[in-house]
């Protein structure tokens, strides 16, 4: 599948998923499980950045996840 077509398909699927699920409301007094450390998106900041540095230096597809690609390091691709 051509890359731009794949990108459009993924974007459309993401928008559809957002529309379908956007109405869910979870009151604050029912979020005790969501507050568990394992549910945090960044439960170990240094581990995640260390892994990202390994990937950014050894794979051609760095960046795009809130991080600028390829910059800031002599080893970046």
């Amino acid at each position, binding site marked *: 599948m051509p*890359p*731009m077509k*794949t*990108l459009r398909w*993924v*974007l459309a699927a*993401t928008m559809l*998923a*957002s529309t379908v*699920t*956007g109405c*869910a*409301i*979870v*009151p*604050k007094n*029912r*979020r*005790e*499980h*969501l507050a*568990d*450390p*394992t*549910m945090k*998106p960044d439960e*170990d*900041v*240094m*581990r995640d*950045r*260390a*892994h990202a*540095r*390994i*990937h950014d*230096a*050894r*794979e*051609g*597809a*760095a*960046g*795009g*996840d*809130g*991080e*600028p*690609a*390829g*910059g*800031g*390091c*002599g*080893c*970046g*691709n």
Partner: protein
Amino acid sequence: MAAATSRLALALLVVICAARVAHAQAPGPTTDLDHTQEMPLTDAQIIGTADNSWHFEDAELRTAYLSQYGHGFQSQDGSIGAAGSEAMHIFEPWALFDIRQNDHITHQVMLPVDIITAASPDAVDAISTASRQNESADLDVRSTYRPDDVNQWNTRFRAHGEEPLGGGLAGAGYTRHLADDNATIGVDANVDVDGFDSRDVHGKYHGKVARETANANLTASQLLSPTTVVDASYGITYQHGVLDPSSWNAVPLSDGSIIGEIFPDHRVRQAISARISQIIPATRTTFKAWYRYYTDDFQLHAHTVELVGYQYIVPWIYLRGSYRYYTQTGVDFFTTRLEVPFDMTAPHTSDSDLAPFDANEWSVQAVMVRGRAPKDLKPWNLSAEVMHYWRTNDLRITTVALTVGRSFL
């Protein structure tokens, strides 16, 4: 007699009432919990006031050792025309500090240091030691200003230094918390400028060169249930300038010699990713699944899938295991042997990081959760991790890491 009794009872009642009123109006000891105040109590009066001045909330130290083995055609550590060694060893002492400035502003300061040995030895070490032994360090400061429950502003500044390269990044972002924090949407942008030495494949110095990177990201998250969260992001990056900081990388020629690599002077990169996180309270288990698609105008396309599982073994210790699969097509100007004659201006590289390959990775980590451990261990968090990464084009990495942290709250 009855009348006298009634008067006595009435008098006693008046005295009792007067005493109660007098007690209620008398100035007593002043406490935040004085229930006779007519104004409603504030949160601070109920739970006390926190220290609002500058203070450390958390500090963490992470020490990791990484060993890498493998071969790539860009490396000159081997015979000409054959893949050279990519062996190297890295020691990483990193530090992270969470600092609160006041009720609304927090700062996260990270100091990653990499001490690298034997990175492509015997390449250009006659002139530069950058490929034999190198040290790199960052100062990365992320600040968050949250004036209310809805709006959040972020800034980021990073400085980076290593022997052939110095650079800086500045960024800013905004996140809006919607529907009582059931959803968030965010946007941020970053600008990164790097300056570095240009050396050719024989180590000759060609002066300072630079590359500029501009990046914008969109993020969103949504609670789906009391145990489920999804989040997604899209990012686009534009780079301009000299895009190969390892300018001494070699490209083997068909006549048995080597030449330096040539990159286009700009690159547009895009990535989209989504993750779902699910906790199962009955078994104290959490699962996360993540997918990412990447594409750029070097015709490199990549897919990444990562699956992560967490399992509590006691209420304050959990085990984390992950598996990651990555595949990329490689850039359209990758070659392991350039035919002579060739176009001197056309892009070409033999960098194995830009070749077509698949990569696998697994990791196992044990974590002691801060705030849940018994007594004296309560403010501490500890973790130990082993990670192994391997590519189908001859590269293997093993990492061992230990982290110690302490909360000062």
